[in-house]
């Protein structure tokens, strides 16, 4: 972290004769500015956490319900009662669905760019992917509402007709399909470029000697990818996915525009008015919120903050778990 330097003792050990240990000013300036930046990020993080906590306290102390387990959200009136259970569920559901949809596609695109496409096409595609990553989320939201929603309706009908026996695809299918699945698809498209870009970078870094080892054994290109590229890129793909998950968790506009909100905890992906995400809730309610409501929303924000933290730590854990085999 920030303290890589061992603590300075009062009396520095005597330098060996003929060797100067004087610190050069350039080193000193750089070391301290780097340390300052490192400390700053911690300070900012702590400040955000403290801010959220302080602002959330008034609502939390007025709350008549259980903040963590209740599903209703009514932080107003004489007996304000609100809980984040349904919101946390909706947030995770939307983000995880988006990840499940986006990751395989992203890995496919990244492999195509890194190992299949002719060089020119690969660099063009890479460029396009990077451009897509820069599109603001509200544009994806507009695309979701105006283009995807009309197109996806019949597809959902089909899903329900042929796979309706699976509970998650149970009807009645919402029309217009302002459902969690639509929102997740928009989110998936949104996080696709960033996941693709990171995965591509990792795949490109596969050591040539591992690829050649596979090919020299008589591996086809796909077998080479399975033996050398994917194992090497696995932790990178996980990082990429978590980056995407983080973005999907906090995404506001695309979800707020597409999803018809509800506060239930269920897996009916094709029904509207069942789910809501924390970020979208904050965006939708903040403009007209009373003091107490704002405080409650900030409490929800604090929960989102914690979720993101946990997701990132889980990702780190997954990446480090099999480190022995990846060195």
């Amino acid at each position, binding site marked *: 972290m920030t303290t890589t330097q061992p603590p300075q003792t009062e009396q520095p050990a005597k330098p060996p004769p003929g060797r100067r240990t004087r610190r050069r000013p350039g080193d000193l300036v750089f070391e301290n500015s780097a340390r300052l930046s490192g400390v700053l990020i911690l300070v900012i993080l702590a400040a955000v956490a403290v801010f959220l906590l302080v602002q959330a306290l008034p609502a939390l102390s007025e709350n008549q319900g259980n903040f963590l387990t209740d599903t209703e959200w009514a932080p107003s009136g004489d007996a304000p009662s609100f809980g984040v259970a349904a919101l946390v569920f909706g947030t995770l559901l939307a983000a995880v669905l988006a990840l499940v949809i986006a990751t395989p596609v992203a890995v496919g695109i990244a492999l195509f760019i890194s190992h299949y496409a002719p*060089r020119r096409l690969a660099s063009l595609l890479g460029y396009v992917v990077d451009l897509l990553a820069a599109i603001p989320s509200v544009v994806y939201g507009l695309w979701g509402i105006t283009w995807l929603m009309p197109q996806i309706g019949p597809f959902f009908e089909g899903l329900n007709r042929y796979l309706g026996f699976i509970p998650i695809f149970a009807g009645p299918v919402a029309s217009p399909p302002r459902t969690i699945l639509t929102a997740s698809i928009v989110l998936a498209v949104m996080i696709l470029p960033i996941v693709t870009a990171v995965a591509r970078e990792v795949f490109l870094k596969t050591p040539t000697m591992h690829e*050649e080892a596979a090919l*020299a054994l008589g591996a*086809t290109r796909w*077998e080479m990818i399975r*033996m050398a590229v994917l194992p090497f890129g696995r932790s990178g793909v996980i990082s990429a996915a978590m980056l995407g998950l983080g973005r999907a968790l906090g995404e506001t506009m695309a979800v707020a525009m597409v999803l018809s909100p509800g506060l239930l905890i269920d897996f009916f992906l094709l029904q509207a008015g069942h789910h809501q995400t924390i970020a979208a809730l904050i965006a939708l309610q903040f403009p007209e919120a009373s003091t107490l409501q704002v405080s409650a929303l900030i409490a929800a924000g604090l929960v989102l903050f914690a979720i993101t933290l946990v997701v990132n730590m889980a990702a780190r854990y997954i990446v480090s778990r099999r480190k022995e085999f990846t060195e």
Partner: protein
Amino acid sequence: MAKRIDVSGLNVYYGAFRAVEDVSMTIEPRSVTAFIGPSGCGKSTYLRALNRMHEVIPGTRVEGKVLLDDQDIYAANVDPVAVRGQIGMVFQRPNPFPTMSIYDNVIAGVRLNGRRMPKAELDALVERALRGANLWNEVKDRLNRPGAGLSGGQQQRLCIARAIAVRPDVLLMDEPCSALDPISTLAIEDLIAELKTEYTIVIVTHNMQQAARVSETTAFFNLSAPGKGGMLVEMGDTNKIFTNPDKKDTENYITGRFG
């Protein structure tokens, strides 16, 4: 097992550059053939052309014929993947798959193309290949540990075990000892001497003593002209090449007057 390689008029191009110029030779089965020559003289490129590994690099192209016994490995209907299954390769730097255990590394080639085998057969195969590579006694108690945890010399022998586990006809070795210490080098050289009873072995080396120690036949490559590609200068019995070569360039090289 152990097939003869007949090369006639082989040219290898990187784009417009002719890296290997018109090489013809016969490599005898159950013997060790060493390629020596200065850096950049195309001997590694030529070696890779013998099992079509050069095709991994975009823009390469080959003219000429390479016959493995009677089969032309550059014939239109031949799959390079199948060629590499018959002609194995060991590289300069040991390259076991870092995410795989020792056991999985050995059977990596066997598992390809969807082949399936009973566990007992796989176990036997792993033991045979590791014994064949003189590595069994050192790793038999830790077959499930990562292959990357072994020493450099052990890793290289693991790579050889991996290569012979698919029972190739020919084993190509591209400077297999250049990243190893003298003791590991000796272990590999002993191994090469054992393997030649079963395989056709071709080894590229910068170490002339090594070529003299391990090979029956030596081929000397050199640049055809400064800035041009490499060509075969002389090939013959190793003793003859190192004591009484026909060409002046060969003599200069092996006596250390250039290169």
